[in-house]
């Protein structure tokens, strides 16, 4: 196994807030890495930095050995990244099916002037329907985005990301907003996709699921990496427990 993603010394601050400080870790090809930590630890910021939605002050990021920290987002996606958002961002002017179909057609829209050459969207729409089925929201396929419940939109994020046929999938709390049944089913689907070869980095608060599915854990707290390793081991460590318990105690006291 080799490293698919290498993240080194990522440091990001907004104004006076230090969101990330010297965070480094690696993701092996085929791995299922879970990124955990209390609220505000910098997990979403980390994923945004990997995909290029934000530009850290300092970062070295390599995908399959290639330095991507200077590339614009769409180039990183072309190289095999995909991301789902914690706060859903569907295209509100399109149906659910079209949201995914556009991503399915990512090769067609890669070059602006060749995109002009195609009118037919049927093949991509059919493929989109299959992806929506995979996450159990195909019944909403031809409906508008507005008015859909959160659970549907969160799964739309996943379907759309999968449509890009990525090598590395970044999932930001994909299970939040789903009920027990939906969450369990989606988690199973994600695990299956990972077994089929897709490398996954997932942020998740649902520690039960994390311990069940993750191969390895990276723990962030206050913008720093405080632990890394096998799920059971990491969760035993005092500093990790303190980070979570400390947060709870603070919240309780406030």
């Amino acid at each position, binding site marked *: 196994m080799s490293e698919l993603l290498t993240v080194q010394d990522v440091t990001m601050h907004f104004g006076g807030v230090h969101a990330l400080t010297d965070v480094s870790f690696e993701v092996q090809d085929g791995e299922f890495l879970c990124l955990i930590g209390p609220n505000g630890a910098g997990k979403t910021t980390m994923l945004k930095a990997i995909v290029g939605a934000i530009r850290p002050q300092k970062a070295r990021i390599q995908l399959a050995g290639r330095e991507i920290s200077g590339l614009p987002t*769409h180039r990183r996606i072309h190289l095999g990244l995909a991301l789902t*958002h914690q706060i859903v*961002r569907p295209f509100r002017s399109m149906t659910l099916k*079209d949201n995914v179909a556009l991503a399915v057609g*990512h090769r067609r829209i*890669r070059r*602006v002037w060749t995109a002009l050459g195609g*009118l037919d*969207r049927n093949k991509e729409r059919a493929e989109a329907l299959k992806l929506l089925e995979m996450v159990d929201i195909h019944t909403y396929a031809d409906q508008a985005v507005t008015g859909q419940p959160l659970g549907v939109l969160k799964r739309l994020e996943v379907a759309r990301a999968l449509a890009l046929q990525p090598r590395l999938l970044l999932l930001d709390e994909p299970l939040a907003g789903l009920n027990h049944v939906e969450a369990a089913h989606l988690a199973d689907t994600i695990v299956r996709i990972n077994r089929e070869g897709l490398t996954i980095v997932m942020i998740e608060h649902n520690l039960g699921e994390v311990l069940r599915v993750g191969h390895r854990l990276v723990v962030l707290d206050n913008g720093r990496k405080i632990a890394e390793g096998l799920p059971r081991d990491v969760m035993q460590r005092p500093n990790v427990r303190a980070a979570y318990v400390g947060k709870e105690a603070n919240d309780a006291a406030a």
Partner: protein
Amino acid sequence: MGIYELSLATVVGINIILAVGLNLITGFCGQISLGHAAFYGIGAYTAALMAKAGMPGPVNLVAAMVMAGAVGVLVGMTSLRVREDFLAITTMGVGFLFLGIVRQQESLLGGELGISSIPSFGLGKMGFFVLSLVLVVLAVAFSLYIKRSWMGFAFEAVADDEDTARVISVDVPAYKLAAFALGTALAGLAGGLYCYFARFIVPDDFGFITSISVLSMVAVGGIGSVFGVIVGTALLTLIPEFFRFISDYKLLVYGALLFGVMRFAPDGLAGLTALAFKRLQRKGGAV
């Protein structure tokens, strides 16, 4: 058709090409342009200067498109660097900048007095109208084609949520530039036609008011809807003509219309038509 009707129809045609171009930039791709008239002007001045230098009509029209499109790409590059709200003002600034430069260039561009005695295209009034009609049909067909193509699909994403478009692999800067290139080239074509139609152009023909007029034609028709824009343009061009008494009130009507449509029916005529269809369908279904 009499001479008057022919002229009117030609003007409607020119305005449609202009509006369809703006609809591409603002409607399809979501980039607000308040300086569209500048590209209209660039096309007109290019064609006028070349015509006076003796070049043939068709060549001048192509040159008008190319010139306008090239500057359009330059302006498009500014859109890459600035956010949405800034873009509206920047494009407005481009419009004023164009006027400012043209007004000061007396020797080359005629300054405030403009360019007069532009030679005729050579087809006569009827022939020129037919040419304009053909170009209108081509422009509209092209626009509809883009809308249905994958370029149009990508434009939709860019207009909807630029950042998310990037995350699903859309090369947003390239698509914005494409929208500007195509939309401004169409404006340039309209400008070329206009200079042959009027045979006399002055800087004020291409000022902020003109940019706003085109924007109102697009907004009233329904931003993004090609057929809506055609109807909106025809209406806003013809109404002042048919109701001569309101020509003194023309601008007031434009302003009130712009405001009213955005306030009460932001999707324009196209939106209202779609709404009416839906209501009819429901009535038809329920017994």
